[in-house]
């Protein structure tokens, strides 16, 4: 690993919805190519962390990407740095086709032939999307839409992917397939990932490092194996 500053550096950020504070002094780093996960109960502030990174919620504190201070930037400018956010609810453009969704993912790029090649690469990961390329995205099943959301994020050629509950609402088999693909993509492209998950067991298998969030505070910050072995975490989040 390089010895410079980490790709993403977050220092004591607070986030607010109107008058309500949702995050309190959250700090963490993500290095190039790392997979990290944010665990926590409903309402702990996991989604808010992702939204804060993308400028989608009022935030103060320090957020640095490639040593650029991006707190307060507009969402679309942050995305253009190579941060792809797969939001809760997947953010699919329902009224356009599958392929147009993928093209939208590459909206910030100009290299036409490379975009076409990347679309084929996404289809190689998700053959079912290729079968449905001309269908309106709204006609896809939940699992297919999640794959489309991941595919669309990949079209940005991101350096960091933010995934919000990728397993939500999916059948167990589909979830396994999806997480295998995420691992594969990480290995092939070296994209870093921050994964928010309710399914803690699954997330701890994917990530090498985990953060535990409780009511807006990071209460644990440790390698996935350590967090997975922790008695309290096991009882509260892993259910055994």
């Amino acid at each position, binding site marked *: 690993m390089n010895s410079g500053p980490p790709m993403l550096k977050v220092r004591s950020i607070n986030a607010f919805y109107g008058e309500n504070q949702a995050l309190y002094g959250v700090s963490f780093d993500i290095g190039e190519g790392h997979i990290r996960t944010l665990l926590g109960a409903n309402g702990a502030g996991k989604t808010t962390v992702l939204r804060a990174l*993308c400028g*989608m919620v009022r935030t103060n504190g320090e957020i640095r990407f490639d040593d650029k201070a991006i707190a307060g930037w*507009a*969402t*679309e400018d942050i*995305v*253009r740095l190579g941060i*792809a*956010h797969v*939001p809760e609810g997947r*953010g*699919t*453009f*329902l*009224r*356009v086709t599958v392929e*147009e969704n993928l*093209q*939208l*993912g590459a*909206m*910030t790029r100009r290299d036409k032939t490379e975009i076409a090649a990347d679309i084929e690469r996404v289809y190689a990961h998700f053959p079912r999307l290729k079968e449905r390329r001309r269908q309106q995205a709204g006609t896809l099943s939940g699992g297919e839409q999640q794959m489309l959301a991941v595919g*669309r994020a990949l079209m*940005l050629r991101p350096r960091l992917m933010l995934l919000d509950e990728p397993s939500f609402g999916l059948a167990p088999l589909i979830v396994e397939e999806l997480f295998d693909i995420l691992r594969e993509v990480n290995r092939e492209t070296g994209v870093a990932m921050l994964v928010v998950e309710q399914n803690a067991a699954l997330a701890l298998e994917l990530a090498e490092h985990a953060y535990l969030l409780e009511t807006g505070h990071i209460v644990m910050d440790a390698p996935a194996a350590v967090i997975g072995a922790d008695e309290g975490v096991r009882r509260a989040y892993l259910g055994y």
Partner: protein
Amino acid sequence: MELLLQQVMAGLATGAIYACMALAVVMIYQAIDHLNFAQGEMAMFSTFIAWQLIQWGVPYWGAFVAVVAVSFVGGIAIERILFRPIHNAPVLTQLVAFIALFGILNSSAGEIWNFTIKEFPTPFGRGPLFGGHLISTHDAGMIGVTLLILILLYLFFRGSRLGLAMRAAAANPASARLVGIRVGWMIALGWGMSASIGAVAGMLIAPVVFLEPNMMLGVLLYGFAGAVLGGLSSPGGAVLGGFAVGVIENLAGTFIPYFGRELKLTIALIMIVAVLLVRPSGLFGRSVVSRV
């Protein structure tokens, strides 16, 4: 029978203009969820600029192209200066801004060019088309130009990346930002295109209704009726609605004795109310279900 056909054709011709106005209204409605009450005044102002250019000796098509371009820039400027700063403001604030824009454009046109009726030239001539009695060359020109605009818009929105980005920004602004689309500029672009389409409508209808600051009042009302009939969420539907309103207006004005020329405008209002009562999303629109 010939009278009926003639009236249908004449209705299609004015309907083409209503279709343009409906389309202009829908483009802005899709982007910001508000009806632009000043759409007609914007078109009227553009038409006055065209008239002025022609008075100064610019040839018709030169003035036409220049005004489409100026209107495009003007539409963007209106969005950036007036509506961008208040885009999160409550509905009534925005409504007042539309009324203000209406008043500003209407009175400035009156101040600059005064309220006397002016003749506006047509590039198509006023004779019958191909020597028949069905339709005049100007009416045919109105229909032709409208269809051309439609085809160009269709190609733009279906076939270009920018068109795709504009559709995405209108349908799902939050997701559009997450793929790096500058949603604010897409909205401004929508305003620009809408202003240009309105300008074309104004320049085409001016030879029929004559140029004066209030000339678009009735036209916009029919445009609204067309947009509501076809569905505010459907550009294609709005265009069909515009044509339909034109035909219905003409037939009712001719064949229902009581309406005559004087009560024709009531038809637009009746249609708006009827559609809103029976099918609020319009013939081709989608009803929006939102969770609260």
